């Protein structure tokens, strides 16, 4: 049996594979490289390997291949990688900190909060549109804190977090819709923003967000072990010497930074933050020291391939990547609800 047969046997049995994070990391790094390659070459105009090589080694700014690669495909690929890793790590962090497997940026109102502030900037202060990532972060942070405190005051149960998230999302969504009704000619395409996608993303959009996403990812990686301690519950975490309140606040800020920054250039992408951390836990177990970096890796790969599907499924027409993600995420969310019910019934 060769290494691949062993790998797929383990995947199908779902048992031993968790002991081999290196193999899984290697496979997904390989998929990431493949995804990046396909993302640069595929689309309404096909780019060949020789064209890529010529852009790399004999760049000709006047050539179509150069312009497509430099101004469209590379920014789009970087955007997909950043969005996938950022939202997935935000989801992994939120699920652990709120001790709720259904938590993710879109479920607990973070997307809605970011969306509102982005729309506010676009509608009321269009000349400050460059501060969209900052506004998106503030919106995300306010939404997270609002949901967190409502859930805490109403019992802090798992369901309280989800329900307060739904309530906050709905309320903030109504404010956003009101603003868009009064100021229909905002500086952003609302439908495109609400669904989420990477078409039209430029390096200018990404550049500013990078300053938030990279430090937030590094913070999440460094503190990932503390998520394990937090998952034991506040009282146990504090008895182990952790300043649980402070660490929880740092994690919530990190998740808000990640989600807000991604939303500022990719729109309200849903469900990556929910699906990917669960996939990571299925593959490598529940140690957050592995879950956080693997969520980043798997999220990048998942988003890259979803974006590729969005581009080629109805080529030459393109559908927003958010639609693909919602098609996959909706059923997955229902699957999680059934799995939780099964656990309750069978203990």
């Amino acid at each position, binding site marked *: 049996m060769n290494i691949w047969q062993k790998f797929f046997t383990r995947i199908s049995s779902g048992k031993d594979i968790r002991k081999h994070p290196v193999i899984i990391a290697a496979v997904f790094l390989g998929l990431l490289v493949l995804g990046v390659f396909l993302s640069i070459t595929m689309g309404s105009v096909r780019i060949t390997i020789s064209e890529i090589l010529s852009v790399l080694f004999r760049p000709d700014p006047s050539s179509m291949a150069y312009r497509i690669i430099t101004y469209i495909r590379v920014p789009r690929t970087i955007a997909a990688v950043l969005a996938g890793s950022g939202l997935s790590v935000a989801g992994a962090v939120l699920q652990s900190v709120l001790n709720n497997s259904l938590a993710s940026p879109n479920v607990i109102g973070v997307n809605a909060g970011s969306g509102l502030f982005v729309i506010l900037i676009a509608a009321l202060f269009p000349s400050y549109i460059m501060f969209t990532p900052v506004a998106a972060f503030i919106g995300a942070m306010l939404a997270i804190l609002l949901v967190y405190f409502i859930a805490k005051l109403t019992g802090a149960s798992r369901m309280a977090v989800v329900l307060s998230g739904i309530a906050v999302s709905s309320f903030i969504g109504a404010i956003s819709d009101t603003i868009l009704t009064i100021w229909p000619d905002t500086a952003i395409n609302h439908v495109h923003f609400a669904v989420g996608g990477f078409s039209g993303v430029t390096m200018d959009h990404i550049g500013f967000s990078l300053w938030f996403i990279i430090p937030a990812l590094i913070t999440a990686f460094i503190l990932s072990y503390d998520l394990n301690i937090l998952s034991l519950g506040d009282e*146990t975490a504090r008895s182990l010497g952790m*300043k649980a309140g402070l660490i929880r606040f740092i994690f919530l800020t990190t998740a808000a930074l990640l989600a807000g920054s991604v939303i500022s250039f990719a729109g309200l992408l849903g469900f990556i933050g929910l699906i990917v951390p669960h996939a990571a836990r299925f593959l490598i177990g529940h140690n957050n*020291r592995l879950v956080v970096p693997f969520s980043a890796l798997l999220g990048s790969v998942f988003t890259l391939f979803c974006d590729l599907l969005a581009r080629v499924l109805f080529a030459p027409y393109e559908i927003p990547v958010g639609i693909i993600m919602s098609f996959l995420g909706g059923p997955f969310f229902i699957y999680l609800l059934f799995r939780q019910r099964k656990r309750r019934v069978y203990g």
Partner: protein
Amino acid sequence: MVSLQNVSSGYNGQEIIKDASISFEKGTITTIIGKNGSGKTTLLRTASGLLKALSGKVLLNGRNIKEHSSNEIARQISFLPQTRITPEISVYNLVMHGRFPYMGFTRISQEKDKKAVEDALAKMGLAEYRDRNIQTLSGGERQKAYLAMVLAQDTDIIFLDEAITYLDINHQFEILNIILQLKKMGKTLVMVLHDLNSALTYSDRICLMDKGRIILYASSEKIVESRELERVFHVNCCPVAMDGESTQYVFTLKKD
């Protein structure tokens, strides 16, 4: 050593325990007993530094507990709460969490941490369970895993909140014997128990609470002799000599 001086404590500014003064002696087992809502867990949380006192002083080795950092406290006091979230992690990783107060910024376990974990697993008889997910363990095995985590934390003072509640009688005895072993290792144990017979049988000192106040803090024999136990719980207490050696206690409800 932990001692409380005229401590009042509670939640949201509301006093649950009032004017409590007590000193938990080194190398002893103290059990806090009292009816539901009498303030047992609040006293335990306050003494362990997890809940700030509204007034009075909590002293840890003679110094106000407020002057100790959270890490310093965690190296001297461990606390096992009654209700816990059980994450999906292996027994080994759970026990390793007990070493958190000793880990540096990188949170990478050192050789001494690994040795402490191996020792704790061996002492609790959990070596063969090391790779098991704690969610798949029985209540008794899970409790032992958490006690192994406490053991790996290597503190002189251990607070246990209802450590044998919900366990079958065999696991109750097993956990109580582990507690005796911990005492033999020189640890100071303070626990809350609802089983009055176990409390009176296994403890050096009993702290009897009623309506947020400490009524008595004395040996089991003195507690029984005082008849305060019977008044607080509204029961009759009858000591029974077993095998001519140990004394067990039978309780019946008062009929008036």
